[in-house]
């Protein structure tokens, strides 16, 4: 039987063979692999790119203290970006499933309409949820807009839910029963995270402190974006830390999720806070496109 890590490694090898850079996880808290610079910033602009990486994705409100067999505070996504989307992208994806031992001719595989939208990132796309015997295992999206910008080149984004896929392949009813390797289970590796972070997000997080943190990261991001707008020297611009500004955006996004799980944001406030994060994301995306274009022009 394929273990959790076998599945991850086989998929990485498969996508490496398709010309993908195999990246390691991004080192900020994110809610989804889409938010990492390897996706969010790389899909902008005209340059081709192919990348695959596993991204632990934190969703504070989804935690269940490790008691629910299907829900996690932090789950693992395998994120694949193919830019531009090749003509046979759906087939490439289906073959990746066969690579991890799923004989699709003996299963019920459907691509059901599911359009994706992230208001905080100013991003949306159209696509499907891939249903395998009634289980959603992957989100497949053709990006159309990111950071509020129409994309020059349309990438395909494949987001595999690795726990679901592993539970399916190993035929277990609970995520915690997944064999991580021959010796340890998913519970052995991750149960403590689920218990402790659920407690933190729902009970312990200091609302005032988290708000303060949010405000600080927002201010830092805005300060940086303002400084980028002020600079005119080409070298200064090339070295300007927009990537650091984007880190601040991601921090805000995660802190927003934490506040929401903690029940500290009323529905009225919610829309406003989303707008604040979105402003940062759009600001970074716009500046990033500008910075990249300037670099290309300089090289030419």
């Amino acid at each position, binding site marked *: 039987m394929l273990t959790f890590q076998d599945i991850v490694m086989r998929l990485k090898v498969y996508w490496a063979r398709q010309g993908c850079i195999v990246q390691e996880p991004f080192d900020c808290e994110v809610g989804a692999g889409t938010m990492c610079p390897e996706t969010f910033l790389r899909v902008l602009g005209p340059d081709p790119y192919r990348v695959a990486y596993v991204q632990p994705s934190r969703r504070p409100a989804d935690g269940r203290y490790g008691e629910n067999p*299907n829900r996690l505070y932090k789950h693992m996504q395998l994120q694949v970006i193919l830019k531009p*989307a090749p003509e046979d992208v759906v087939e490439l994806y289906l073959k990746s499933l066969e690579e991890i031992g799923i004989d699709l001719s003996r299963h019920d*595989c459907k691509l059901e309409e599911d359009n994706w939208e992230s208001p905080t990132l100013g991003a949306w796309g*159209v696509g499907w949820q891939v249903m395998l015997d*009634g289980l959603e295992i992957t989100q497949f999206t053709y990006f159309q807009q990111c950071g509020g910008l129409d*994309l020059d*080149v349309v990438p395909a984004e494949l987001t595999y839910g690795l726990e679901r896929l592993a539970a399916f392949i190993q035929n277990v*009813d609970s995520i915690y029963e997944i064999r991580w390797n021959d010796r340890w289970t998913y519970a052995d590796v991750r149960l403590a995270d689920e218990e402790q972070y659920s407690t933190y997000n729902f009970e312990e997080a200091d609302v005032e402190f988290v708000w303060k943190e949010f405000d600080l990261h927002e201010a830092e991001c805005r300060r940086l974006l303002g400084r980028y707008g002020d600079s005119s020297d080409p070298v200064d611009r090339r070295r300007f830390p927009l990537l650091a500004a984007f880190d601040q955006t991601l921090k805000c996004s995660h802190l927003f999720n934490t506040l929401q799980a903690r029940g500290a944001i009323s529905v009225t406030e919610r829309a406003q806070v989303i707008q604040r994060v979105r402003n940062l994301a759009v600001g970074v995306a716009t500046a990033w496109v500008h910075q990249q274009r300037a670099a290309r022009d300089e090289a030419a």
Partner: protein
Amino acid sequence: MSDLLLEVGTEEIPARMISGARRDLKRRFIDCLRDLGLEGGARVSVEATPRRLALFADGLPRKQEDRVVTLRGPSRKVGFDADGNPTRAALGFARKAGVPVGELESGADGRLMLRRRIAGRGTGGLLAERLAQVVLAVRFPRSMYWEGKGSPRFIRPIRWVVALLDGEVLPFELAGVVSGHSTWGHRRLGSGPLAVSGAESYRRALGDNAVILSSEERSRKILCEAEAILPAGCRLRKNSRLLETLVNETEFPTAILGSFDPGYLSLPEEVLETVMLVHQKYFAVEDGSGAMTNRFVAVANSGGDATGEIQRGHERVLRARFNDARFFWDFDQRSTLLERVEDLKAVTFQAALGSYWDKTESNLEAARALAIALGLNTEVAERAQRAVRLAKCDLTTEMVGEFPELQGKIGGLYATAQGEGGHVAHAIYDHYLPLGAAGPVPRSTAGCVASLADKLSTLGGMFGLGLIPTSSKDPLALRRAAFGVIRIVVESAMPVSLNRLVEISRAGKHETHLHSYLLERLRHWLQTRGGFSADVVQAVLAASDAVPVDVLSRARALAAVRTTPDFESLAVSFKRIRNILEHAEVAGSIGAHELDTDLLEQGAEAELHAALQSVAIRIAEHNARQDYEASLREIAVLRPALDRYFDDVLVMTDDEAVRRNRLAFLAGLLVKLSTIADFAIIAPDPAGKKRR
């Protein structure tokens, strides 16, 4: 005759859009044929699966008809001199047309002309130029681009195109794809590319490669197989929308029977159905008595399930979903609906109108006012109050968080579980009803009041803010809320006036807007659900639009008697009276005159007066009992007296005092007899058609 096969191969088209795309492609193709002069007798059909739109056109003409066009030049007199030699004018015309001057003819109008035959173009060339445009024009609710910014848009990427006219490839490019003669089978059960030579070989190739092109056939396969695998005595719970979705989500559907732990049947059926039908797209299975069983039917896009893996997979997912639902149920019982009232302060209803707690307060006020307006007894009024107090509390539950489509129903179910009593629980359960134009209204008075209170306070709040919907913009679904109000008061026969409803809604300075908005919905109800003709509706509303349910009673009565012969001619007399009065008004000869019975002439006038007196008394009695049909029959009795009156009496006589008295008499008659409907509005019915 020529036959066309066009197949647009795509990535998976959303199921909900496929039927529309079939119709739209067919229509646009036929329009295109007409536009090109190729429509003569072609049979066009379109089939679709998630991965292809296939158009067949048989019996196309091979080419356009030849046409003759006529070019007109100068007159013959100008073109040729007296000796018959061409002038510069004729030479110039011939040169421009590119013919020798000898080919010019004279037209009947004396001008020179040239008839030129234009050969019709071949069908193939014409279609090759136009087909891409036809396909890309097909409408989808949301389209995408997949090449680069500015590239063509379609619902999903187009990956191949088959275009064959009489077996020959029609060469063109569609969104970057060059047409050819190769199609593809089912993604996993078939193969490709598959070369085809025409409609027949195309259908065969698909059949051999696990694609059932006909949606009717896919539908049949699903139903037949389901029938065959169900245990004896069980049947599918029919759901045509689910069936259509599954038909449009599969190229080779196979029905698979699954089951779940019967223990889950203790969850409410609403929850089980939502999980199975909406989330998992499974058919529920019921036994002979209609009760839900612990079976379900999934439809796989696959050839079969020899090892039972597909069945086990679907069962596992369903188990997880039901487990969640049970968890939510148990978790939610930790606090009662009543304990959740305070939590509503954190749930926004509308930015300017506040939270659902605020909304509940205004709903309570509206319910109180409704109870008074409807004269409800204390018991019912209190039930309604209790229901309204609790109705929104399920918004704070985990269950509604997971299944938002069940809001209201969950509240009702929880109320039952928490011992609220059937009347209150039902009222909460029903308080979003009616949902559509035809769905049921709440089953009890308390439920009607709870629903009316919710809708009226929403309407009043939104109109009060000036958020008045237009025909194209109604994001808050106020039209549906207003129609719901009308449906409830009319269909549940609640004797309350529009004015009172508007007053209860508290629309502030926009009260008149809301009044006319509700009136418009009432008119719509009468014509659509009521089935009354436009003139009947207009006539009863003209008499009075005060109380909707009373309007309905009068419309019924009027529709019942309007086709009787006496009634038709009464309508004519009423029009005549109306005309006389209007003319007199223009001439300034109408004032506030009391009828002076001494001035009535013996004979027809006095007789009509006497008849009217006794009829008016009986009408008042009938009307008091809302027996409007009896009243209308009374009015019909007046016909001979009215006819004689117009035969014998000259209203606009020269004697001013008499004239004024007669006008006053007619005006009074019109008022007395127009309490049910304004008969002058009733259209004559020359064809004698039966109308309501």
